[in-house]
């Protein structure tokens, strides 16, 4: 009996978590006439009309490409700069290390709304409005605390002896970092990269402020500003939502363990 209750509860939880997404998927398959009719809940005559509309009617592919480029470049940059710093913090002697760690941690607590207007003025002055660079620069820096934090934890777990041995063998600190330490920290890099990528893929406030046209617009902005003449094109929005969410759902299913590891880094160990 207890097992039945347990299973039932788990099913309810799963339904609560997946329900809204499933409903969006169902909506995306309904022809327009059925959108304004309930019941039936499931589409009576399922159609791929909305998917076709999304891919042909709007510059959707450009927007997906924008998001992909911005998110991958930000991830690569944030991880590179973050790994350097994390290696320094974990394995080298640094003056006022504690103060630097606290600075990095408090930087992650900065409310974005307090920084968006000065950054907007800088980006406007540099002529970078409506370019990929504006977003790449912003995301790289705003995700630095996350990458430094996760990677410092990973570098710390690599025994000092390994680093010292490579130094004895004649590596400079930089060589040792690139040849010995980075490969050993690969799992940490994967963890940090997934989280940074998800952040950059999903970010909205800066993307909304710094972009102006589909030339640089990312997915969240496009979905928020979905063109609708009189009524919201709910079918098209649902189709677009499904298209941009599926990669993330796959990412979560495949890298579940890494994501959990990254989210809890530091939070539990103190």
């Amino acid at each position, binding site marked *: 009996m207890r097992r039945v209750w347990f299973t039932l509860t788990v099913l309810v939880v799963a339904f609560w*978590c997946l329900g809204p997404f499933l409903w969006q998927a169902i909506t995306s398959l309904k022809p327009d006439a059925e959108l304004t009719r309930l019941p039936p809940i499931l589409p009576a005559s399922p159609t791929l009309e909305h998917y076709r509309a999304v891919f042909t009617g709007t510059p959707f592919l450009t927007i997906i490409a924008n998001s992909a480029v911005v998110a991958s470049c930000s991830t690569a940059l944030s991880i590179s700069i973050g790994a350097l710093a994390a290696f320094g913090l974990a394995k080298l002697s640094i003056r006022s290390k504690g103060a630097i760690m606290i600075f990095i941690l408090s930087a992650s607590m900065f409310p974005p*709304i307090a920084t968006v207007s000065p950054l907007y003025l800088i980006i406007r002055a540099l002529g970078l409005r409506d370019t990929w660079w504006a977003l790449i620069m912003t995301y790289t820096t705003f995700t630095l605390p996350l990458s430094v934090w996760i990677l410092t934890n990973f570098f710390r777990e690599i025994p000092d002896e390994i680093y010292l041995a490579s130094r004895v063998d004649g590596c400079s600190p930089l060589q040792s970092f690139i040849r010995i330490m980075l490969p050993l920290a690969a799992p940490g890099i994967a963890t940090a990269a997934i989280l940074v990528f998800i952040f950059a893929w999903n970010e909205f406030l800066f993307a909304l402020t710094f972009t102006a046209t589909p030339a640089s617009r990312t997915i969240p902005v496009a979905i928020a500003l979905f063109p609708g003449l009189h009524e919201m094109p709910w079918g098209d929005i649902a189709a677009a939502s499904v298209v941009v*969410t599926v990669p993330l759902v796959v990412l979560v299913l495949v890298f579940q363990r890494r994501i959990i590891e990254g989210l809890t880094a530091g939070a539990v160990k103190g």
Partner: protein
Amino acid sequence: MNGKQSGNRFVMPAVLLLSLVTIYPMLSVLYLSLHRRLLIFDITKFVWLDNYQFLLSDPRFWNAFRNTVYFTAATVSLELVLGLALALLLNRSFRFKGAVTAVVLVPWAIPTVVSARMWEWMYSTDFGILNHLLGAKINWLGSPFWALNAAVLMDVWKTTPFVVILLLAGLKVIPSDLYQAARIDGAGAWSIFRRITLPLLVPVILVVLIFRTLDAFRVFDSVYVLTGGGPANTTETLSIYAYKVLFQTLQFGYGSTLSVVVFLCVGAMSVLYIRFLRAEVKS
């Protein structure tokens, strides 16, 4: 430890970049908040604390402040209770545990804007699935009473997974022999939870509270996309109000004043929390 080289060069790029997006904007926002700056007319005028004085008597600011505090208190407490229940449920071994944990993570990974759009559609008065299932005709996003609570419910759905993951990690490090000893002593489930689980979980709960409160207090995208701050500003949070003043009316002076206030609130809360955490870890 000896044989260590100076690592300053390694840390420098990260620290410089972070200063660029934190210290510089902070100073710049402070400076702007003492000015009247209208971007369209290219006017910049030093006005002392006029903006702050205006803020204190600005009913729309106080309205946004109240909304933000309500949103923060409601979401964080609901997420903590629900998250704790879910974490306890998932903290045992059962078949398909990995799959269930992955499913719980899904709302967290969905872009905030997408989830706001999903909920907006579910909340639709005439064609929404929620009203259909409830057999009701609630005007979720159009009524001043429901709109803010609708935003809270959406946030609870979206963010509880994060709370669950942190609490699960905290539960895992509680040694299992403590539970066994308690069971041998004849303790019931409730008293084990009260006497062992909860006290040992306090540090993690505090960390969750820090992350979530700071995040909820600066909420922007989910509510902005769901309701745009309406109806009649009943869901307008501080970040949304600041954003509108900055980028819709282009008043960079007063908008910056609002940003400074958000910053001060968040800063004060983090200092307070970190104090608590330190005291807790020491005791």
